[in-house]
């Protein structure tokens, strides 16, 4: 019966397949990140140690396109089943609208490793463990509808299920835990999906966009069952709505990017619940220039402001770290190419002036041939023991990436 179905399916798909252009590509990769300061909490000496293969199928026929990108990885640090569908979607393109259905990576906003309007899931573990840049983003299972009438462009994203950002694993990274003694932990995933809308167009030579999102925080919050004698900690994803805007365009010799967003923490609008993030305003200003050939410099200023700071302070239990009302971060990136752009030096540095958090990521990448490239880099973290980067100060690592592409 199943053979009959397969034959029928093949016969039905044959005309489409005959007309489709099919391309297969992929890569083999080795990726290692050695600890530079201390062993992992689980005692291992590497943050990452794996061989990975990716296969990508890209088929186009008329207005249709199918893309599937799957990974198979062999992890040497105790993780099982590292197969993953990175992306898998079908596109339909019409005159002034289109549709993408399936697992897809979506990136909004203008920031360089700073996210104001990019509400889609990320993989922070990949970023901190020296994996290639494409692993920074996780796909979402969604329907994306694009409409392109004359006056503006619209991108509507409907995800029936929620997908969270991946935070570093506690076996590999030294994560701040206010209640380390409580072993009983549970994770509560949102029972529904999320929806986002981006509207964008050119305004007097500038790229302008508006962003609306209704869903959940992608990074989890923690709530103990009892403050004085906790026995169980629940990890959950608080409700969130976002209203944002961005604009970018030429300014002087470079490109200026501005982004702003209001984070409406729907689950705790009064700010009285210490376990749920306060409503926030986030602002980003970025400037990128190319002062000489093959050199690019980027600078960002990023601010977060809490809206109900008084309520937050009043509700915060004793012994918990106190965050400032406003947080100011500056970042800089230098990218320099050498040897006909086959060798690239890039250094990214971020410093939070409010809590002293810092993160530095230098990387040297060389294309040995058109098919083989390798990179060596490092991640250095510093700051207070509970800060986003400060908690990782013992997780400094040096990483290697080698990839053969076919």
């Amino acid at each position: 019966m199943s053979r009959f179905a397969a034959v029928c399916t093949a016969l039905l798909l044959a005309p489409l397949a005959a007309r489709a252009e099919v391309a297969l590509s992929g890569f083999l990769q080795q990726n290692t990140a050695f600890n530079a300061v201390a062993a992992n909490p689980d005692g291992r000496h590497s943050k990452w140690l794996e061989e990975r293969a990716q296969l990508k199928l890209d088929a186009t026929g008329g207005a249709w396109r199918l893309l599937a990108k799957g990974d198979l990885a062999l992890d040497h640090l105790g993780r099982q089943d590292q197969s993953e569908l990175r992306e898998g979607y079908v596109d339909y393109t019409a005159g002034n609208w289109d549709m993408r259905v399936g697992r897809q990576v979506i990136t909004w906003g203008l920031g360089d490793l700073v996210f104001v309007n990019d509400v889609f899931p990320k993989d922070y573990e990949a970023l901190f463990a020296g994996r290639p840049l494409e692993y920074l983003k996780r796909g979402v299972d969604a329907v994306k509808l694009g409409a392109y009438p004359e006056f503006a462009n619209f991108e509507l994203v409907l995800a029936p299920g929620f997908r969270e950002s991946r935070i570093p694993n506690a076996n590999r990274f030294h994560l701040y835990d206010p209640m380390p003694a409580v072993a009983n932990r549970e994770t509560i995933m949102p029972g529904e999906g999320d929806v986002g809308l981006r509207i964008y167009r050119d305004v007097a030579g500038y790229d302008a966009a508006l962003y609306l999102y209704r869903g959940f925080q992608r990074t989890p919050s923690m709530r103990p069952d009892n403050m004085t004698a906790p026995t169980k900690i629940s990890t959950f994803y608080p409700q969130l709505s976002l209203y944002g805007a961005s604009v970018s365009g030429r300014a002087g010799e470079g490109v200026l990017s501005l982004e702003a967003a209001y984070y409406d923490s729907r689950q705790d609008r009064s700010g009285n619940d210490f376990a749920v993030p306060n409503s926030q305003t986030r602002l980003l200003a970025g400037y990128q220039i190319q002062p000489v050939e093959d050199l690019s410099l980027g600078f960002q200023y990023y601010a977060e402001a809490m809206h109900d700071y008084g309520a937050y302070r009043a509700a915060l239990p004793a012994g918990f770290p106190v965050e400032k009302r406003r947080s100011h971060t500056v970042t800089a990136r230098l990218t320099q190419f050498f040897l006909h752009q086959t060798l690239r030096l890039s250094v990214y540095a971020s410093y939070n002036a409010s809590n002293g958090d810092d993160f530095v990521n230098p990387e040297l990448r060389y294309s040995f041939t058109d098919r083989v490239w390798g990179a060596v880099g490092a991640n250095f973290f510093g700051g207070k023991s509970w800060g986003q980067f400060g908690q990782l100060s013992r997780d400094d690592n040096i990483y290697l990436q080698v990839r053969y592409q076919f």
Partner: protein
Amino acid sequence: MKTKFQRRLMREARYAVTKRWWIWLIAGLLPLQAFALTGEEVMKKSQAAFLYPGKDFKARVVMKLINKDGQERVRELTMLRKNAGEPGGDQRYFMYFFQPADVKDMSFMIYKYPAKDDDRWIFIPAINMVKRIAAQDRRSSFVGSDFTYEDVSGRDLEDDNHAFEREEKIGSRDCYLVKSTPKGTDADFGYKLTWVDKANFLPLKEEQYDKRGARYKLFTADEVADIQGVPTVVKRSMKNLQSGHRTEVAYLKTGYNLGIEDSLFSERFLRQPPRKWVD
């Protein structure tokens, strides 16, 4: 017996003939001046013939970057160009990369304006992000090749003084030789010499000299083909004479006036380049 009136007519006629004689003399001398093009005019016609033919243009571009030891790297892309108006005016460029593997699916868009810096956008497939990028340095290498952005999409004629030097043959082709010297000090070259084909105004050879006067870059049009009636440089190369590195470029699948829509040059298609244009 001539009347007073007739005498006056004859006098005027004689005067008119005399006057016309001078006019003819002047007219006889004029063409020498009128048909000799200035350096400026040659370069303007050359720009129109080399970078602006057709309403739009498409080519599959294969670039070979070859170092002095003969090692090759290949950059392959589809380039689409659309003119906004007359030669010398605004243009839009769309590029989609096939090779090398680590930039496959990357796309790149330029809005080029003659008198100000370009607007440039890049689509980075790894994180599915469209980014506007700074582009004040048009003398930067294009994808690591020996060609600069200006070599690919043109340099503003107003940036240089163009002086007609002499006529000279390149192979069997009669050429105008024009010397172009940057007006400002920001250019990375001291001057350049361009040999422009008298018949079709394509640049057949260009020598760039550095600021000390040493020859350092050599452009040659290696093959000119007739594409839909338009003489087109389908093979070209640029050699860095000081480093020995060179770049050879072949234009395949070329076409003019294909009806490329304005809407192609947008974020939408930067993210999802339509197959019909990027094959």
